[in-house]
């Protein structure tokens, strides 16, 4: 059987169009090639990820205690309650639920629960939130969700190969930004979008995250991380909607990834996971540092 290999968005799109396959199928085939596993084994492995994601969302929604630092915990349930309430809301129920799920995963992660680092632990809420909420809203099967997860992985793979997925190198644009692009492509395919529309959705979402700093208070993966997952999934929904409206990204996906890489390289290290800049450097940030016994930030100014 022919094995597909791709390293860029352009290559992925060429394969998808030539063989008339969705991105998820190209990705599934690719994985069989690199891992020398059967289709069944690869799917089973992804299914395990899906199971863990569902569990992470569920346990996050139930969490009602605060984390060790007191900065997070208990907000996912609040968000879900609001999503189901009668108050006058201005966005769709699907998006509100996605936001609740994203916070749930983030809170699960902050309190030593089990998550899938997809693409990282800090940004692990965006993709589950997007695919689970969309599948509930549109009554899609698990099989469809899995397609979304394969598509998201393909997008992440291109980012990992050509830029980075680590906040320590690229700032949060590499973590929540990448997760958001991956989620946008995933839900676009799940909703019947073409491969081109999936890449457009990813480009649109990632463009909007360029330059995002990684500035976690006291170095803990809580603030801004947990709620930033909710913002990341919102951004993914927007990217997917714009793409499905037939609007293209003016800049190609590969170019956006390159922009993300160069932007990351230009970012000072204080804004790349060192917890020495941005929100971490504010009076609130410094107060939490002191509270958990960290030495003060010797700021340059």
């Amino acid at each position, binding site marked *: 059987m022919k094995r597909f*290999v791709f390293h860029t968005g352009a290559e992925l799109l060429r394969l998808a169009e030539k063989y008339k396959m969705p991105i998820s199928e190209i*990705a599934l085939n*690719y*994985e069989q090639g*690199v*891992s020398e596993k059967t289709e069944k084994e*690869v799917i089973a*492995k*992804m299914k*395990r*990820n899906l199971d*863990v994601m569902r569990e992470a969302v569920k346990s996050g929604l139930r969490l009602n205690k605060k984390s*060790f*630092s007191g900065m997070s915990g208990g907000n996912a349930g609040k968000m879900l309650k609001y999503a189901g309430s009668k108050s006058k809301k201005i966005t769709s129920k699907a998006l509100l639920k996605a936001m609740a799920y994203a916070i749930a995963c983030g809170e*699960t*992660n*902050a*309190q*030593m*629960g*089990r*998550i*899938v*680092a*997809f*693409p*990282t*632990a*800090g940004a*692990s809420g965006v993709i589950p939130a997007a695919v689970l909420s969309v599948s509930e809203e549109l009554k899609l099967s698990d099989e469809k969700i899995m397609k979304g*997860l*394969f598509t*998201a*992985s*393909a997008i*992440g*793979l291109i980012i*990992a*190969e050509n830029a980075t*997925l*680590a906040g*320590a190198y690229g700032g949060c644009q590499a973590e929540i930004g990448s997760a958001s692009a991956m989620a946008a492509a995933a839900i676009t395919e799940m909703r019947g979008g073409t491969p081109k529309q999936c890449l457009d959705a990813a480009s649109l979402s990632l463009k909007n995250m360029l330059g995002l700093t990684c500035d976690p208070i*006291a*170095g*803990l*993966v*809580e603030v801004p991380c947990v709620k930033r997952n909710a913002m990341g999934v919102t951004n993914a929904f927007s990217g997917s909607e714009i793409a499905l409206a037939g609007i293209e990204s003016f800049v190609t996906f590969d170019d956006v990834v390159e922009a993300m890489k160069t932007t990351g390289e230009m970012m000072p290290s204080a804004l790349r996971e060192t917890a020495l800049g941005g929100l971490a450097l504010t009076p609130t940030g410094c107060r939490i540092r002191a509270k*958990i*016994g*960290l*030495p003060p930030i010797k700021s340059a100014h």
Partner: protein
Amino acid sequence: MAYSLFDIAGPVMIGPSSSHTAGAVKIGQFARAVFDKTPSKVTFYMHGSFATVSAGHATDKALMAGIMKFKTSDPQIKNALNIAKKLGIAYKFAKTDLGPEFHPNTVKIVLEAPGKKSMEVIGSSIGGGSARIVKINDFDVDIKAIAGKYKYLVISHSNDSAVLTEVLQKITKFDKYYIAGIQSAHIDNHSLTILNLEGRDLSLKQVLELAKVKGVEFVRSLTKLD
């Protein structure tokens, strides 16, 4: 080497931080694997940000969990210190400064057990859940403990090239292995060699066979860091 989709979608792990939690579990697993026994006493010398932010990230629990061979996805990591107490493993955490040449997320682990030479392992968590082992006893090494990518064989042997040659010959007879890397460190007439293999997992029987080669003190196969 080509990425697997599961380098992106995964690993399944216990939060909150791939570098402070998952990476720390792997350093612990590694130390336990080289020591090859559940220690009765472990001392963790925490360096850099491991010394300062360990509590918020549960790095202490993660390290201990690794020593007890928990996986990075085991929900019991949370209770690792209590479990260690129940198992009668004495542990201690101390702050230290290993020097500027070490990565900020570094720990020196000293493992002890009755009737066994104590062992010292230094490891750093380098991000994304990956760990790197930089010292075993007094030997400088460089082992990247990335789940599932390569198989590592740690071989302690006398400093005699014939020994290593024989080990390598045996390995190539087992199966088709591609040797992606090999590093040796020597102190006096003793060597520590790390083989980096691409291929199938070695079976316990095969590892034991390698350990039987004359001049080999021990062989540890590190295939299950997960």
